[in-house]
C-alpha cells in the first residue's frame, strides 16, 4: 500500500464516563473508499469528528494528508471536506447562494466561489433547482447540496458520515454515483455507514467497529470469506429432518441448526453445489421443499463478529430503521436464536 493518507494510532476518546474510542487504529490508502462499519454508538462518528478537527482525542495520534490533526488543525482543514448526517446547509438560502457563501468562507475568493458553485451545480445536475430556496428541496437534493458544499475546495480527503441515512433508494444511488466519480478522480473517501450494502458497494477496505475498537479489517470479500456461506434447506415434513441433518453434516462439515422444517448450516470453507445437495438428499430419501446456498452478506459478517445485527444499537444507541432491519435482519436474528437452540 502507498503510504496512508489517513493514519490513526491508538486513538482514545472519553466523554465523561463513556469511552467512545478505546484505542483505535486505521490506515487509509490514498484514492480509495474506506468504510467504517458499525452499529449506532460504536464510535464511527467520533472518529470522523476527531479527523475533521471538530473534537480532540483524549489520547493517541492521527494524521490526515500528512498533518497531525491536533498540532496542525488549520492545515488539515485546508485538505478535507466533511458531509455529515445532516444536510448542513442554510435552508433559508438558495442552493447557489449556499455554495457561494461557503465557497467564500473556504477561501476561494468572491469570483472563485461563484465559478466553482456554478460548475459544481452543473456537474451534479442541480442547475434547475439552484435558485430555489433549499427549504423547498427534497431530502435527496438537500443531501446532494450538502455533499457539493464539502467539495468546494476539491478536498484530498472527504469524510462522509452516514451520507445516505434516511434517504430513499434512488437518492442513495445518486450519492453512491457521486462518490465513485470523486474516487475515480483521486479523492480519498472515509465513509461511515450502518448500511452494510453501502460499504459492500463502495468501499475497497472496511473496518468493522464495535465499542470504540476495530474488531475486523479487510476488503469486503476477505471479510466474507472468513464467514463462509450458508446452506438453507427446507424439508417436506418432520420425518425428513433427521435424514437431512445427517446428509448436511456429512457434506458440509458444519453444524446444522433446525427451526421448524428449515435447516440452516454454516459452511466454513467451500459450500457444496445446489445440484449436489439435491442429489444427495434425494438419495437419502428426504423430501425437499427448497434448497439454497447463500453467500454471506456483510450483515452475516457483522452478526458473526459481534453477535448482533448492525441495525441493533450498541452502547448508547437505539434501534434505527435501517433497510437491513427488514426481513434480512429478522431472518438473521431468527437464525441466531436457532443456532443457540441447537448448541444448547
Amino acid at each position: 500500500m502507498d503510504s496512508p493518507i489517513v493514519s490513526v494510532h491508538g486513538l482514545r476518546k472519553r466523554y465523561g464516563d463513556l469511552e467512545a474510542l478505546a484505542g483505535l487504529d486505521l490506515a487509509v490508502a490514498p484514492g480509495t473508499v474506506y468504510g467504517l462499519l458499525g452499529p449506532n454508538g460504536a464510535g464511527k462518528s467520533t472518529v470522523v469528528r476527531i479527523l475533521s478537527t471538530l473534537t480532540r482525542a483524549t489520547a493517541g495520534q492521527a494524521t490526515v494528508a500528512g498533518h497531525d490533526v491536533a498540532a496542525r488543525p488549520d492545515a488539515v482543514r485546508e485538505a478535507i471536506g466533511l458531509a455529515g448526517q445532516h444536510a448542513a446547509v442554510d435552508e433559508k438560502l438558495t442552493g447557489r447562494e449556499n455554495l457561494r457563501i461557503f465557497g467564500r468562507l473556504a477561501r476561494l475568493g468572491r469570483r472563485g466561489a461563484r465559478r466553482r458553485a456554478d460548475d459544481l451545480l452543473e456537474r451534479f445536475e442541480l442547475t434547475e433547482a439552484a435558485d430555489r430556496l433549499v427549504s423547498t428541496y427534497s431530502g435527496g437534493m438537500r443531501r446532494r447540496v450538502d455533499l457539493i458544499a464539502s467539495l468546494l475546495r476539491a478536498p484530498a480527503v472527504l469524510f462522509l458520515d452516514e451520507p445516505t441515512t434516511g434517504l430513499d433508494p434512488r437518492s442513495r444511488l445518486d450519492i453512491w454515483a457521486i462518490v465513485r466519480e470523486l474516487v475515480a478522480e483521486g479523492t480519498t473517501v472515509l465513509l461511515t455507514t450502518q448500511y452494510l450494502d453501502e460499504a459492500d458497494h463502495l468501499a475497497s477496505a472496511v473496518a468493522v467497529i464495535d465499542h470504540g475498537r476495530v474488531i475486523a479489517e479487510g476488503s469486503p470479500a476477505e471479510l466474507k470469506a472468513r464467514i463462509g456461506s450458508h446452506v438453507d434447506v427446507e424439508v417436506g415434513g418432520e420425518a425428513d429432518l433427521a435424514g437431512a441433518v445427517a446428509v448436511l453434516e456429512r457434506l458440509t462439515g458444519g453444524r446444522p441448526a433446525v427451526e421448524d422444517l428449515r435447516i440452516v448450516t454454516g459452511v466454513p470453507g467451500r459450500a457444496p453445489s445446489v445440484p449436489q445437495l439435491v442429489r444427495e438428499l434425494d438419495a437419502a430419501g428426504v423430501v425437499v421443499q427448497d434448497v439454497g446456498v447463500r453467500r454471506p452478506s456483510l450483515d452475516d459478517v457483522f452478526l458473526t463478529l459481534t453477535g448482533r445485527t448492525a441495525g441493533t444499537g450498541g452502547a448508547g444507541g437505539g434501534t434505527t430503521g435501517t433497510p437491513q432491519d427488514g426481513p434480512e435482519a429478522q431472518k438473521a436474528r431468527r437464525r441466531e436464536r436457532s443456532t443457540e437452540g441447537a448448541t444448547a
Partner: protein
Amino acid sequence: MIVLADGLTLVQRKLLHLRHQPGTLVAMLVMPAVMVVLFGFVFGSAIKVPGGGNYREYLMPGLFVMTGMFALSSAMVDVAADQGRGVTDRLRSMPTARAAVPVGQTGADTVTGLIGLLILLASGLAFGWRAHHGLGHALGAVGVLLLFRCTMSWVGTYLGLIMPSEQTADALAPLTLPLSMLSNAFVPTDGMPGWLRVVCEGNPISAAVAACRSLFGNPGATAAGGSWPLAHPLAATLLWSALLLAVFVPLSVRRFTRAGL
C-alpha cells in the same frame, strides 16, 4: 483581516435571509406595535409619567430598547439552529476564521437592528413622539441603541452555543419579554416595592432606556431618588455594554472554537 472578510460574508448570509423573507422585519416590529397599542393607549392612560409629560413620548424609548433586547433571543435561536443542523460543524471544519462566525452573527444583528430601528423611529414620529434635543443627540441615542443591540446579540450568541438543542432555545426565547419589562421601559420605577425597584433599576435595560430618554429629550429620563445607573444613564449604559462585551465576546469565540471538545 480574515476575520473581518469572513464576518462580512456571514453578515451577507443573514441579509440574504431578509431579502428572501422580508416578513422577518415585519415580525420584528409586531411586538413593539402591540406594545404601542397596549401601553400607549390602554394602560398608558392610567400611568403617570414622573415629572409630567406625554406617556407615549415616555414609552417610545422603552420600545426602542426592547427591540434591541430581542437580539438576544433571535441570536440565541439562530446560533442554536445552526448548531443543531450541522452548519456550525461545517464551518468549524473549514479554514474559516474562528472568530468570524460569532462576529458575523452579531454584525448581522446590528445591521438588521438599524433597519428595524429606522422603521420604528418613523412609526414613533407618526404616533407623536419627537426627539427634542436636535440631530446630534438623536444620533447619539441611535448609537446607544445599536451598541445595546450588538451587546445583547453577543450574549445571545453565547447562550445559543451552550444550548443543548434548537428546541430549548426556542422555548427560552420568549423569556426576553418579561426580562425587558423588569425595567423602567413601560412604567416608572419609583412606585415599585423597594426590592423590585433595585432589581429593575439595576437591569441594564433601564440604564439604556433612561439614556435614550435623556438624549431624545423625552420625559421621565431620571427618576427622583433613583439609583446611580438611573442618575448617570449614559455612563451606566456604556459601562454595562463594556462589561458584557468583555465577558461574552471572548466566551463566545472560545466556545465556538472549542465546541464539542
